[in-house]
Structures are given as C-alpha cells and as structure tokens.
C-alpha cells in the first residue's frame, strides 16, 4: 500500500487535470441517496466498466444502509428526542458513521483502482451529495509535450503551477 501511495504522489506531481466526469443522482426510487450506474463514455478508454459499476453499487449500498428506516433509526431517534438531541453532542449518528466508512472506501478505491489509471474519485459529500466527481488526469511525465503547453492556465492552476516548478 505504501508503494501505491508513493506512486500516486509521483503521478500527481507530473499529472495535469484534463477533464472531470460527473456521475449524477438516480432519483427513480425516490429522494434517497443513490447514484446512476450508467458508465460514462469519457472513461471508456481508462477503466473497465465492471470495476466502475462495482464502485458505484457499493457506494449505493452504503448510502442505503445509512438512510435505512428501521429499528436502529427509530431507537436512535427516540433516544435523541428524549434527551432533546443533546446526546448528539457526545455520540456520533449512524449516518456519520457510515459516511466515515464511505470516506475510507473511496480512499481505498482511489489508491487501488483509480490512481493507477490516472483517475481520482471525490467523495460526494464534498459536492453536496449531488454528484460523484471523477477527475481525469493526463500524464505528462514522459515529457512528450513542452512545459509551456502542459502548464497552460486553466481552472487547475494549482496543479499546473506544481508542474511548472518541476
């Protein structure tokens, strides 16, 4: 895992943000948090459809677990109401626990699957739970493009600035 991590940082230093793909929400079953499993065409050349589907399905199952209305959520709700919701200052809600799990899962997926393919998953929580943002990076380590063109001004100026200093 340490080697993959180092590779990821190595890649970051000579990678330029080329594109961002947004996986939209799937509202067909209501307002619960669920993302579309449709494979975006921009990733066709980058990764296998099965891996992508697996990632989104797992994320959907985590969100379903977080938003499940059942015995545990009733208990949590009633207990919290009885204490005028002050108990949430000390305890973590179930949703927060699952969000932490999701964050860990996304990190793991990035390290194992997405980073080696020049991609980066962003946690949907950082985008208001609206989209799963996948950043597509171009590798400029080989020096095939001139430094001036690879460090053009774009919204990823921070990244290209990084590239420029090397």
């Amino acid at each position, binding site marked *: 895992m340490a080697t993959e991590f180092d590779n990821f940082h190595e890649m970051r230093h000579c990678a330029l943000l080329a594109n961002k793909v947004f996986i939209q929400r799937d509202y067909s079953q209501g307002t619960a948090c669920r993302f579309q499993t449709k494979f975006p065409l921009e990733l066709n050349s980058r990764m296998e459809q099965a891996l992508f589907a697996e990632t989104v399905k797992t994320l959907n199952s985590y969100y379903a677990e977080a938003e499940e209305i059942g015995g545990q*959520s009733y208990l949590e709700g009633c207990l919290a109401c009885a204490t005028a919701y*002050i108990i949430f200052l000390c305890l973590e809600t179930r949703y*927060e626990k699952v969000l932490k799990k999701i964050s860990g899962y996304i990190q793991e997926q990035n390290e194992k699957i997405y980073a080696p393919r020049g991609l980066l998953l962003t946690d949907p929580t950082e985008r208001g739970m609206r989209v799963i943002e996948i*950043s597509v990076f171009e590798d400029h380590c080989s020096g095939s493009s001139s430094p001036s063109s690879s460090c053009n001004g774009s*919204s*990823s100026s921070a990244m290209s600035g990084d590239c420029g200093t090397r």
Partner: protein
Amino acid sequence: MSAVMITRKVRKWEKLPGKNTFCCDGRVMMARQKGVFYLTLFLIVGTCALFFAFECPYLAIHLSPTIPVFAVVLFLFVMAMLLRTSFSDPGVLPRALPEEASFIEMEIEAANGNVPAGQRPPPRIRNVQINNQIVKLKYCYTCKIFRPPRASHCSICDNCVDRFDHHCPWVGNCVGKRNYRFFYLFTLSLSLLTIYIFTFDIVHVVMQNHAGSFLISLKMCASTVLEVLVCFFTLWSVVGLTGFHTYLISLNQTTNEDIKGSWSGKNRVQNPYSHKNIMKNCSEILCGPTYPSVLDRRGVMQDDSPSLTTPATPSSTSDSTVPQTTKPTAPLIPNEQTPDDAKPSIAASTEISTSLTEEGEESAAHRVPPLASPETDAEASIAKAAAQ
C-alpha cells in the same frame, strides 16, 4: 504602494455565498434578519419567567410541586428545539463549482440542440420518474444546479435547500430536510407549554378567588393578565400550525408543495414520496436518519486576497478567525459534522492533492461570471408570506 497577494487561512463559512449569518466560528447558521427570532425568544422566556416567578410558588404549595417541575422540563425542551431549529443548517445545497456548472451547461445545450437566433431557448427542465410519477427538476440559475426533487431556492437566504418547507421568520431560518423535525417538535412542545401555562393561570385565578364574587375574581395581578393574553393569542396560531404540520407529515408533503398544489390530485397527479401509510410517513420524518450537513462551514481554506499595503509576512496576518491549533496540512475536505458538534475536522492525507485543486476552484468560483440571468424565485416568497 504595491499590490501584493496575501495568503491567509480562513474558515470556509467566511467565503460561502448566500445571505446567511454565521456565529461561533461557523457552528451557528441563521438567516440575515433575526428581529422576529429575538421577539420569539423574548415572548417565550418572558412569559415563562413570569409564570415561574408569580404562579409557580402558589401552585407548588397549594396543588403539587410537580407542576413547576414539569413546566421547567417543558420550557427547556421548547428552548432546545427552538435553538436547534434556528441554529442548524436546514439542508443547504452547496452551489456547483465551475467544472460542474459548465458540465451541466454542456448537457443542456446538447439536449436543446440548435436554437435559431432570436428565439428563446426552452426552459431548463429535467424530467425524472419517481415511483411511476414524472417529476420536473428545475434548473437554479443562482446555484447553477438542477434542483433535486423537493428542493427549492429560498430567496431570503439565497440558497437552495433540500426538502424545502418554508422560511420561518419566527425561528430566523429556513425549515428544510435537516431541521424539519426540530421545527415540528418546537411547535408541538410550544403548544403544550402554552396550554399548560394558560390552564394553570386560570386554575390559579379560580383558586385564589374561590370564596369571592365574580368581581373579586377579576382581580388578577398584572403578570397573570399578561401571561393569559400572550398564551391566548399564541394558542390559536401555534396550535393551528402544529395541526397543519401534523397533517402535512401524515401525507409526507412540504408546506411548499401544499401551497403550490403539487400533489393536489388534479390531472391524476399523486404524491410519489408518500408511503400511503400515515404511520410510515410519520416515522420517516420524525424517526428517520439525521442527515449530516453537506455545507462545509468549518473547513479551512487559503484565501488569496490582494492588498494595497507594503508587503507583510504571511505569519503576521494573524487572523482572529483561524485558531492557532490549525495544522499547515489542515483539511480542506474534512468529514461532515453536525452543526452543534465542537469536535475538530479529521485530516485525510491522501486528499492533499485534491485539496490543492479545491483551493484553485474555490477562489476561481468567485471570478466566474454568471452563465445566465438570475431567476426570480416566486415560490419562496409565497412560502414566506404564508408562513408569516
């Protein structure tokens, strides 16, 4: 004098768009106009203070000491619910970052095709099917997103709020997905408190003047008169509001949808969110999961602000808003916390690379000119007028 860029660390709430006010370094989030909220606080605290000071000693001695104890418990619950409703994030949807906004624009243009010059482009609407019902998602020109179902843009707070109910000036905040149950519990407990105080005021008057004639029984002290007056007028409005929201909860509707008549039944339009079971609808809203805030208020970001002063070292711009304990690799994308949570955000080391990109986007977001004309949102103002 030269212009230099001073980079300083600020909390994200300082740079959030929208017309909210933040307190306690981003932990508290309210609307801009708080005058009516202070009035609510004054009325509740003032009336209860009079009750505890003047009625309770008599009632504790002549009836039972449990009466003031229960009143105290009820009062504390009301205050807790009021403050929770007023201070928490109602479910604000953060605005789209430039890449997402341009991605959506591209999708819209692709869907609309070539519009002949001079003709108005078609309205930006996306149709989704929810439980065999077609729901139209409208595009928000301010937030540059297609609003999720049941979300609406509040023109007072200038934010899109998920499951928008209404903007309540009495609590000084919007009522949305995250704080609807607190709002409902507030109105319910306030109704109970009002009825309780009103009842025991009458009991007190009757008991004190039991022996005397009708004229003597009218001799009430000023505090009792005041309490009875406040409670009488509050009863009608708050009890009515509680009843209305109980009706809405049982049907799984929001005030916004009720006012617009979205699911009124004409054209065979049914509410796709209702479980068709009163108990299920109630349990979903009152006992459902507590959604965390997706609006990052307490995260730290770099702020590149130009300054027309002689160059100063970055360390000397010691910002009072940034605590000294913030580490240099402070998280820009921390895990989400509940609004009243005082625990600091947890840093994720592999997200440093994304955090660098985030900085560029955050500052760039304010320099991107609006892509389309702003939308005047009539629905929020109708909701506001109805709630007042």
